[in-house]
């Protein structure tokens, strides 16, 4: 029996189905990502687990207990909202302490745990600041500390990194993963960024139109996409004669599919090619090894390993 079990979960808003028969088992300590395009029902799923949206049908069980019978305030889940939802009139310390106050933790222990949590997210020096006086990344970390400090049974993260710039996002991804490893909290992350999902998760749930198209490890979903949607959503893909081939699996060789290089783009650690062939335009990604590569207009031959 899974730690957290979503059983045939559905949510309809009027005539529209936001989540459609989603079933998912999450193991204790696991890091799971809900991945999919905008409007596919990720937030709705998360809000149903949190208790702020009532499912139209289906069940949610946490450690065998019916979670839908428990009030949101009693579920003991840590949530980081997309907008952070920090309490604007409280300092970072007061924000983090709020959940412990609600649990009736004594002042001394509370102070110690709040300080530890802020230290964990690297904000020890900012404890006395109000949210307005913190950068987006710092606010996000306060929200994370606030969710973690109550030692939640599950950590729910709704696109927590989407407001950050690329560099900070990458740093925060590494930090988030490290924190999750250290604390060991079962985590569900909502994101529409496939790179983020693959970088962080033990397993990804690729969602489309309210349904789970595939639930698998990132590597498995990438290498063996269950549907055409999953293949196209997880990175670039070529369809050559009806077969899906990843661009980085295609190599230049002495013989193979004949083509002409249309464009060649240098991207630092790799080259990105667009090659005209009899089967249409093919995208090729090659590692930059420092060797000379075919130029634009050159005639090339493409080969790839056949895969299931």
């Amino acid at each position, binding site marked *: 029996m899974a730690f957290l079990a979503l059983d045939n979960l559905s949510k309809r808003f009027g005539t529209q189905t936001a989540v459609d028969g989603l079933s998912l088992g999450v193991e204790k300590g696991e890091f799971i990502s809900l991945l999919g395009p905008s409007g596919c029902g990720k937030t709705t799923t998360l809000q149903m687990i949190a208790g702020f949206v009532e499912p139209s049908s289906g069940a949610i069980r946490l450690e065998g207990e019916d979670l839908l019978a428990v009030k949101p305030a009693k579920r003991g889940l840590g*949530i980081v909202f997309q907008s952070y939802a920090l309490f604007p009139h409280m300092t970072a310390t007061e924000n983090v302490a709020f959940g412990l106050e609600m649990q009736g933790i004594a002042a001394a222990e509370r102070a110690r745990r709040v300080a530890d949590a802020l230290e964990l997210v690297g904000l020890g020096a900012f404890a006395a600041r109000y949210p*307005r006086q913190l950068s987006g990344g710092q606010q996000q970390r306060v929200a994370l500390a606030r969710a973690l400090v109550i030692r939640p049974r599950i950590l729910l993260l709704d696109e927590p990194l989407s407001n950050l710039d690329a560099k900070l996002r990458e740093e925060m991804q590494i930090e988030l993963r490290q924190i999750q490893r250290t604390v060991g909290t079962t985590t569900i992350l909502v994101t529409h960024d496939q790179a983020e999902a693959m970088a962080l998760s033990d397993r990804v749930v690729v969602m489309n139109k309210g349904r789970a198209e595939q639930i698998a490890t990132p590597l498995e979903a990438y290498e063996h996409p269950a549907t055409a949607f999953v293949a196209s959503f997880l990175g670039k893909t070529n369809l050559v004669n009806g077969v899906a081939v990843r661009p980085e699996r295609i190599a230049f060789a002495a013989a193979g599919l004949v083509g002409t290089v249309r464009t060649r783009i240098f991207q630092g650690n790799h080259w990105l090619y667009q090659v005209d062939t009899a089967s249409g335009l093919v995208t090729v990604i090659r590692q930059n090894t420092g060797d000379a590569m075919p130029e634009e207009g050159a005639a090339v031959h493409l080969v790839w390993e056949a895969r299931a």
Partner: protein
Amino acid sequence: MKSTPYLLALPALLLFAAIVIVPLGMTVVLTFHDWGQYKGIEPVFILKNWREVFSDSYYAEMFERTFRIALLVTLFSAVFGAPEAYILSRMRSPWRGIFLLVILGPLLISVVARTLGWALLFGGSEGLVNKALMELGLIDTPLPFMFTETGMVVALVHVLMPYMVLSVWAALQRLDPQVENAAIALGAGPFTVMRRIVLPQAMPGILSGAVIVFALAASAFATPAIIGGRRLKVASTLAYDEFLNTLNWPLGAVVAVLLLVALVIIVVGANRLVERRYGQVFR
């Protein structure tokens, strides 16, 4: 050109000076003039009027009444207006507009009609309000309305409440509903969410609403004039009487200037307090 903005502001400045600064200055000068029943106003410099106002307990009582009424009106406006604003901010599209109109309604009705309406509602032992209160056992004898502070407070709360509601509503507009959800998820009950999360965020709105309501209540004229008449006077009706009935302009000027100075001190002080308390939290 550097002076252009100043030149552009000049017409407005001149108008401001002409209709505010100059009459105000003249009023202040007036407070030092002498006045007699038969000789009228004499342009001399004496402190007689100021002495009279500060030595006669009648004036102290009257100012006390003015500010007591203003304080009560502010208090009731906040107690009723803030929850009203919260409910309003949670309403959906058609209802919000309708109820906003209901709240702004009093501002659209003539002060005479409104006050008369209240007088009828109380209206001795036969009035609806008095009947209801007596039925409920809250009072034994009918509450008098005309010529009482109760009447003034009730009528002023009615007309000044919209300012409080709008001010709090504006503050609540910035409130992210997810913030309340965040508090709930951390284990807070509805009462705690209200007290610890919503109220503190509405506080700047309540305080600025209170400043507006207090200033308007303390300087209100029409409502106290109709309800209090010449029997129960507040600062503004007293000044009016001195100007237009007794014709003792210098004394009326002292009352008017004192009211203005007191209000400016209170309003500026309250603003300072709000700034100091909430400056770093909200922008």
